[in-house]
């Protein structure tokens, strides 16, 4: 199967700090990959390079066979990669509904190139008018009760959810989540991940997510890639990577021991 994402030999330096030393990653379509590593290991730099926010010093990135290395984030989004942010990027003065409407509006705008398209037009890929599609999205992500609340006043977990929902609104083929559960209370974490994953996976979206919570990583990912000081330390099935001694030493810390035993019983 041709990989949906193929990054080869990515190198990136910020002054004296090397965030990427020849990173090569190839991702199959319709899978879930967890990216782990300590802060500064290069995970977010990798994500930023894939999504066009940063340009690698060397190496290239191909998405669905097309070279996207030099493209602008806007162009990359239009090709089918969308991301969520560590700090949720929302339209704070607008309500949750309005946030989603703007997102869907952009989808409409991009697909039809019709500047003057008014709300009643049908949003492609949803098959319904804009407002109906917006309400559908709210339901899908459990945001209905926050419909008329301004984004500014939302609790952190809901902000994260809305941020991810907007990324999914674009109907990407690949979704990249940057620390989807950081800053979210423990009881909310799984709720968010369950909602996001079911929404994404039901449409065959390939998901990459950066995480620090190893429980989340082991439960939701089919493959884990561990970063350390700009290099890939390990790459493979979650149990294998999380049990790897180097990974345990440099990335995970002691908690893995407890995890790998409980995982045997909980994993499907």
């Amino acid at each position, binding site marked *: 199967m041709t990989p949906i994402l193929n990054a080869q030999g990515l190198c990136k330096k910020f002054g004296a700090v090397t965030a990427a030393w020849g990173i090569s990653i190839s991702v199959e379509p319709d899978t879930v990959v967890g990216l782990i590593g300590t802060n500064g290991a290069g995970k977010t730099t990798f994500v930023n390079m894939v999504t066009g*926010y940063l340009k690698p010093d060397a190496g290239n990135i191909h998405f669905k066979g097309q070279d996207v290395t030099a493209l602008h984030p806007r162009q990359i989004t239009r090709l089918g990669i969308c991301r969520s*942010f560590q700090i949720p990027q929302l339209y704070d003065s607008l309500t949750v509904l309005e946030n989603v409407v703007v997102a869907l509006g952009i989808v409409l705008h991009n697909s039809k190139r019709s500047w003057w398209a008014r709300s009643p037009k049908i949003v492609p890929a949803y098959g319904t008018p804009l407002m109906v599609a917006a309400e559908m999205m709210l339901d899908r992500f459990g945001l209905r009760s926050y419909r008329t609340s301004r984004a500014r006043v939302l609790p952190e977990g809901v902000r994260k959810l809305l941020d991810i929902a907007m990324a999914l609104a674009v109907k990407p083929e690949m979704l990249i989540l940057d620390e989807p559960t950081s800053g979210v209370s423990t009881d909310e974490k799984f709720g968010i991940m369950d909602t996001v994953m079911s929404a994404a996976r039901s449409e065959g979206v390939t998901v990459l997510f950066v995480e620090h919570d190893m429980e989340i990583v082991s439960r939701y990912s089919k493959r884990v890639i561990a970063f350390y000081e700009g290099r890939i330390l390990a790459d493979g099935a979650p149990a294998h990577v999380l049990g790897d001694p180097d990974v345990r030493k440099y990335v995970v810390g002691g908690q893995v021991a407890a995890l790998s035993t409980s995982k045997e019983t909980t994993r499907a």
Partner: protein
Amino acid sequence: MREVVALLIDGIIYSSWLFIIALGLTLIYGVMKILNMAHGSLYALGAYMAATLVGYWLGHGHAPYASYGMLAVAAVIVGLVAGPLIERGLLRFMYGRDEIVLLLVTYALFLILEDVIKLIWGVDAYYVSEPYGMLGNVEFGGLIYPVYNVVLIAVSAAAGVALASVLRYTHHGKLLSAVIHDREISMAMGINVARFYLVTFTIGTMLAAIGGALTAPTVSVVPGMGVQVIVLAFAVVVVGGLGSLPGAALGALIVGLVRSAAVHYLPQVELFSIYAVMALVLIFRPKGLFAAAEVRKI
């Protein structure tokens, strides 16, 4: 050849004037991230105060050469009174708001000050040309120039050097550089940023007032004389890079020389040439010639 020399000298004289006006503006922006639209009004305040003091001084028969001291006194008074009054009385409550909000606040301040000047000094013109003519003339390159212009160049250069030295060599200057660089971290490290803001704004006001005071003997001091200053100062500061002292010097030099060339060869485009230079620089160097590095946002 004489034409070129004349052009250069006129250019340098004008550049010095531009520099002294722009210096205060860029200092205040560099430290406080405020673009002070009332800068021209402070300049006008300096001119009016100078006119009053010099008029009083000479009117009471005091030593004529000491009237230059009155120019300096005028600038200091305006700086020490208007500066803290504005910073403590108004700006202090606006810190943390968007920089465009602060721009509008200073715009409101400009409107208020313009009328305050009219209320205090009336609408008639003031003339204090004695200091201008008193030093006589000097010949240079076959042309006659008032010595006063040399004074202008000297003061301008001195102000620039003094400010740069303070920033680089004194203890407080280095702290100020830290504040310019990053306000939050400076605060976290115990630097009394509030006091620095007060001092900076006062010095910036004084510099604007010096510009006005120095100009007073060369023009008729009338209401509205400061209105075009903000535009010129901004053009200079933008060419050099907002917040950059050497940038202001370079900007003043470039704009001054271009304007001088325009005046000599095609006077209709005088104003146009200044803004054209600014627009051109911005097209190729969007943040000015000495621009600060951009911080990563996400």
